[in-house]
């Protein structure tokens, strides 16, 4: 089924008298490629999406752990499979460029000059991606119809790391940034590429998963330079220069619990390091920790998990049972 000739509406955004736009998704989707690379551990998907650019078998995608494998596998919508290697990254734009290493002649993609300008909030968009690895082989990636809700800077984090995002990004009103959607091209009503779905990230302060895309137009000039001369791209850094905002470990707060010997060892405080945040807050030997950051905890393991995933930079609020009383403490970070 590759009949994607579509006519789609701008229900909310065109005047009733205006002729609705027709979107031909066949050409756009035929240039979205499935990428398989590193990952598969700790809930990190080992698959994503990219967009064919130029005419020499280049693929633009978002920078992510998937590209830690070399080569990665690129699968076209007709089922053809190619090995591809990282040519370089455009750190400022959060993008990476791959080139197929097996004969990529004839793999025609978009000229970066075709990338559409940054859409204003309210623009209807079609977001593609291989969320949940639904598409395989010659199957087309998935498409969702969304709206640009917000266009501007965004503070995000991944786990406990702050992540630097290009400015601006496009926040979308649909649940687009599912596992495997990263790199999925987002098209405007004219069928032109606007952005790529970003990797899975949470908002820095609220912790909610953000559905956003990284614009392409801003990177068009740099992408054209890379296509002309791959050495123009920045070499990929050995490690991502992401700022560690501090792991919330029990030890960092000066807490030590009972040895975790059985599956549900009760989280009794064994000792408190003198002068530590826990000691300053007033925790004592034999307190039973029953909640961390608002999450009920029933074991040493759950307490450790709750500390590890506590929002960074903020005090960690815990509740303990001391004798028959329930006491709440706020542990300051150092």
């Amino acid at each position, binding site marked *: 089924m590759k009949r994607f000739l579509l006519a789609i509406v701008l*229900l909310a955004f065109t005047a009733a008298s205006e002729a609705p736009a027709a979107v031909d998704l066949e050409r756009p989707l035929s240039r979205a490629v499935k990428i398989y690379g590193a990952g598969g551990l700790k809930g990190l998907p080992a698959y994503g999406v990219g967009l064919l650019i130029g005419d020499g078998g280049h693929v633009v995608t978002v920078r992510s752990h998937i590209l830690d494998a070399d080569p990665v596998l690129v699968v076209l919508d007709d089922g053809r*499979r190619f090995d591809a290697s990282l040519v370089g990254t455009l750190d400022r734009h959060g993008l990476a460029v791959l080139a197929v290493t097996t004969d990529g002649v004839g793999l025609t993609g978009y000229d970066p000059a075709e990338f559409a300008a940054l859409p204003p909030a309210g623009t209807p968009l079609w977001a593609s991606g291989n*969320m949940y690895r*639904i598409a*395989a082989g010659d*199957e*087309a990636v*998935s498409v969702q119809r969304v709206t640009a809700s917000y266009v501007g800077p965004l503070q995000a984090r991944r786990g406990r790391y702050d992540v630097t995002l290009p400015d601006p990004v496009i926040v979308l009103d649909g649940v687009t940034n599912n*596992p495997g959607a990263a790199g999925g091209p987002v098209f405007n009503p004219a069928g032109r590429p606007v952005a790529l779905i970003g990797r899975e990230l949470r908002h820095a302060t609220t912790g909610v998963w953000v559905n956003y895309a990284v614009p392409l137009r801003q990177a068009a000039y740099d992408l054209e330079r890379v296509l002309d001369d791959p050495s123009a791209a920045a070499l990929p850094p050995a490690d991502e220069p992401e700022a560690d905002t501090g792991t919330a470990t029990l030890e960092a707060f000066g807490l030590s619990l009972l040895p975790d010997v059985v599956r549900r060892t009760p989280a009794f405080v064994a000792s408190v390091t003198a002068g530590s945040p826990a000691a300053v807050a007033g925790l004592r030997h034999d307190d039973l920790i029953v909640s961390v950051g608002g999450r009920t905890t029933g074991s040493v393991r759950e307490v450790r998990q709750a500390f590890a995933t506590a929002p960074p930079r903020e005090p960690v609020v815990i509740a303990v049972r001391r004798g028959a009383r329930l006491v709440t403490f706020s542990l300051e970070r150092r």
Partner: protein
Amino acid sequence: MNATPARTAMRFAVTVVAAGACGAASAAGPIDGTSIGVGDAEENRIALIERLSPTVLTVMGAAGGGGGSGVLIDADGHALTNFHVVQGVGPFLKCGRDDGELYDAVVVGLDPGGDVALIKLAPPAEGFRFPFVGFGDSDGVRVGDPALVMGNPFLFAEDFTPSVSFGIVSGVHRYQYPDGSDVGLLEYADCLQVDAAVNPGNSGGPLFDADGRLVGINGRVSFEKRVRINSGVGYAISINQIKKFMGQLRGGRLVDHATIGATVRTERGGEIVFDRVRGGMPADRRGVREGDTLVSFAGRPIRSVNQFQNVLGIFAAGQRVSLTFRPFTRAGEPPAKPRTVAVRLAARYGEKVLNEVAANPPGQSPPAAEDAEPPAGLSFRFRPGFANYFANEQETGRVLALLEAAGFRTDRTGPWRITGRSRRGESFAATLADTAAGCELGAVVGLQPLGPSAEPVDEPPGTGGLLTALHHLRLLGTRQTDSFATFGYFGTADPDTDPLLGRLSADGPLDVLVAENRGTETRFYVSRRTGRLAAVETTLDDRADPCRIEFLGPSTGRPYGLADAWRVSYGPDLYAELKIEDIRTADAGAGEGSP
């Protein structure tokens, strides 16, 4: 909507639909604004939703439990929902409709593998006709088409007014692996993917196209590490798959999915190659060997393992499809020519597994509700292998009545004497009696003893059991179906898609009766349109190919209304083409007589 109160508009819609003016609510115009103004599109969409609303159900167990959605598909009150919505809640259900009323309902047919259940609502009064929706063509759905999802997510609506979400089709011909259980149920093959919100409680509810035609039954979503709410990825069982199972579901069966007894893998270079081919299974019987390349299946080219599972998953056991493969050749040899064969699909789960998963409470058989009194207007009968045996009896009775109206059955129970001539000029004669069946075709003589200890055998040799087929034909024709170990309605067959029944296409859709006896299985194909017996097919054991007699050409007033041209084949191979000249029957003990 404008000033018209929604409530009134809905009642109006009910009246129109219930009056039979249009069974399926169809749109007054496009709802996606492709060819009209956006305001008109919105008006059309609102009108469409109001017309569809009375067909959408909230489905719950009669004693609580369960909880999902459903959709009415005929005026008698048949409705579709998910198997997982009705699993374990017993055969009796309560269904809420947008009129705020609760209706009693009963399970009719179950497809645990495909996650489909057919249920039936009790009409509130005699002669009541439910509003219902018509089926669309899910193979015609394209990516980007509007997707209208209705149901009762989170079971919020206590007055059962359906919730609506609207989006686009995100993908077609998707494959979603079976659940994690040992037997692997709830496989979504060839399904539709939508971005319209699908949440817990939407399960079993309808997916409509822009014209309000039913194109799918919503049932699964991808949640993965997020919470169990919509993540923009919902899946609907395609209505075209359900159509293939509908006959069996109406026949009250526990429907089985299919296997060809072979697995495939992707070779380097992308070819799909047979990996393991189990002896005696359908693929093996058609000459498929390990290393052969799978080219197409059921008329669809296969380019990935996923695709093969996708296409296989939409068929029921017992259906027949075409398979094209290229025999293995060594490197350097010229590639072999592709061969196309017809495979009859074998059962994937088997009756034992299906009985267990459908039992209520799960794992117990017979179900606790076996003896429960059904609510007024509904009937239920327990029998292993069936979701509701009462429905099977009804369908069996319907087809037998069709046959009788077409002149097939008589009360005469005596022997039959059939005479004729083969196309090659040999004389043919068969005598069918209670103790034995025999025949002569030219110099070939066949004999099938029918005593209590006689085993059905391949007689005459090379027919696959022609005499057993004729014997069973006589049992049906002489009202002796009690002599079969089991006898009932199987479902439907479509001569347009069954590669071996193509000669019967003039008969249109076929109802199939099935009889089992001494390890043999005989199917009687009856034209739903004319009531004519179109074919008989006997399989001596479940690893054998069937002997098939097709009754072709016009009926010439012979007893039983049978046509004169009989085409006898064994599996795909023609055995004989017979021109029947006479069929004589005798009343029991009365010797020869003319009908």
